[in-house]
């Protein structure tokens, strides 16, 4: 059974259809890349999976660990192990990163019936995770994302991911706005967190992130449909030739015909 099973997903915002029949299957231990031009629906897909209320699902279903994902609230999804690394991480003035993350982790632990961590235990965990992704301690005691540089914000997302240890992580354009060094640090963090028990969906516009996070599958999203799927080499072809050739190739062929899944 796959970890995530998206079937014929249609969704939109305020009556405008954006996703028009997505099929996607993600298995444990896999890394999937979703690529596509601007406006193709990549971030919408990430938002629908995480439960952003602005999006309305009009058709289709999503199973996560065999359960109906769309029936869960955003916080229930998070507590069940779904993590979204935001394209634009949000600032929360006056709330320290440390406090925020401890509250989040304990909400998740409580949901799973695991004992909540006290301050000392939490600090020990944080120290361990900081090493994994090379995170600057000074950021811990600053308000969540407030005054962070673009790179620091993205790194903070990955740090949160490290602490919360999700089963399914969705990285929404985590590479955008990063210089090459930051990109490498973020990617290394993701790689270190990889395990046979979790999966990562990387949403990206550019191929360059995939030099560092090597995907098992690459899917091309155009006009709200996955029009082509393949292995990691597909990303290189896209980098070289752009998206237009796929548009031409796919023509009016129904998206389903090209839908891919884990083997």
């Amino acid at each position, binding site marked *: 059974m796959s970890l995530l099973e998206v079937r014929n997903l249609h969704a939109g915002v305020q009556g405008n259809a954006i996703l028009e029949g997505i099929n996607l299957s993600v298995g444990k231990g896999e890394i999937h890349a979703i690529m596509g031009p601007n406006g193709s629906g990549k971030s919408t897909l990430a938002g629908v999976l*995480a*439960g*952003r*209320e*602005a999006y309305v699902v009009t058709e289709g279903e999503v199973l996560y660990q065999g359960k109906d994902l769309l029936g869960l*609230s*955003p*916080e229930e*999804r*998070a*507590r069940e192990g779904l*993590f*979204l690394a*935001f394209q634009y*991480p*949000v*600032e*929360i*003035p*006056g*709330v320290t990163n440390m*406090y*925020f*993350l401890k*509250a*989040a*982790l304990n*909400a*998740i632990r409580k*949901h799973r019936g695991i004992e909540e961590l006290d301050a000392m235990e939490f600090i020990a965990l944080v120290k361990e995770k900081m090493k994994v992704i090379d995170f600057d301690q000074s950021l811990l005691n600053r*308000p969540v994302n407030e005054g962070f540089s673009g790179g620091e914000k993205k790194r903070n997302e990955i740090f*949160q991911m490290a602490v*919360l240890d999700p089963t399914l992580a969705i990285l929404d354009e985590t590479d955008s706005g990063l210089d090459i060094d930051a990109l490498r640090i973020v990617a290394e963090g993701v790689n270190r967190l990889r395990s046979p028990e979790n999966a990562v969906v990387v949403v990206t516009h550019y191929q360059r992130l995939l030099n560092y996070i090597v995907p098992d599958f690459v899917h091309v999203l155009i006009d709200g449909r996955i029009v082509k799927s393949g292995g990691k080499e597909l990303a290189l072809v896209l980098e070289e030739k752009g998206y237009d050739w796929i548009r031409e190739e796919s023509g009016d062929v129904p998206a389903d015909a090209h839908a891919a899944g884990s083997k």
Partner: protein
Amino acid sequence: MSTETSNIEELANQEYKYGFVTDIEADAAPRGLNEDIIRLISSKKGEPEWMLQWRLKAYGHWLTMKEPAWPNVSYPPINYQDIIYYSAPRPKVRPKDLSEVDPELIKTYQKLGISLGEQERLSGIAVDAVFDSVSVATTFKEKLGELGIIFCSFSEAVREHPDLVKKYLGSVVPAGDNFFAALNSAVFSDGSFCYIPKGVRCPMELSTYFRINAADTGQFERTLIVAEEGAYVSYLEGCTAPMRDTNQLHAAVVELVALDDARVKYSTVQNWYPGDREGKGGIFNFVTKRGKCAGRNSRISWTQVETGSAITWKYPGVLLIGDNSVGEFYSVAVTNNRQQADTGTKMVHIGKNTKSTIVSKGISAGHGQNSYRGLVDVKRNAVGARNFSQCDSLLLGDRCGAHTFPYIEVKNTTARVEHEASTSKIGEDQIFYCKQRGLSTEDAVNMIVNGFCKEVFRELPMEFAVEAQKLLGVSLEGSVG
């Protein structure tokens, strides 16, 4: 409207969980106000003639004054002749133990983390010998007495320390200062008096005792705090636990005096009944609070967290008379449902190199209307005066309002005055971000609101700050759960 907005509204639409206990007082004066009533109040309290004359003079002022119409609040006209201005303290029917107390009230106490003993005291249970708050209070009082600190009820001060009371009463808020202050001066019920002698640092926050002391101070409370040269005191008013009160109109006066090098820190956490969803029955809180930095290098700080009351009209200010004196005002005001708050501060710079800091955080939810009204007044001789003001408003939902009325009058060219203001709405993005990390909407709102208020909470004594955070949580959390 998105679900997010309606979630916030749901939070905001929480009912106050306990209604009023409407009692009929046995020994009460007839309704209305006239000289005879004032004579009655004064004689019932056994006051000396000078105190009576002071009251009568204040009454004379009051008769010539009009209720202020300028605040940005609206309420039905108050009939001052329909109010009972004196009722004798009488033994109340007390519950025997916590099992007889409204379970909702107990739940709130627990949420606020109030200890069992404290819960018993707050709910008016007759305390036994094991937890005898009165004797605890007596112990405190003895300790303070050794240092020469006077801390007693206002009535007691009038009897025991008439010279001090005569010297300072009305020296900061004159009897004719404003309509409500004049009313208070004529009919004040009781309150607290606190005197810290020269060079003495009060070793404890004057709080626990005050809570006990304050149980029956009534609607026209009067407080006077005097810190002599080099003295220090931190005073806590109010309580995070909800207050039950049958009096709708409250008009208190607080006067603080700081002499050379003295410091007074006054913190308030107020959680009165705000009225029902339509605003019916809530407390009207018209308070005059003012400090006088009379001496050089003196410092007065006001910190307030206001969550109760249907109407709040309150401008704790500081007269900066002594050279190099410092005035501070840190405020969090929450308005929910139909609550209205018009609150802020007045900083009057008179002495040289005087400094003032104003940090105001207004939170509006439901149909709440929150106004900041502040005056920074730099007089002609206030060479080198400095002021920094910051007024931030946070809106929850889309039917509430935030207003800012800053007045700045500068008559000295060397003064430097800064004003910063911001208005923000709790963003759906912020809430979604928190939820995506596993937090409930309620926890997300609490966290964001507490983060917003952090600069003010930081000024509260530690224990109070923790209570205030929880209180804010309870005020906005509500209906959920």
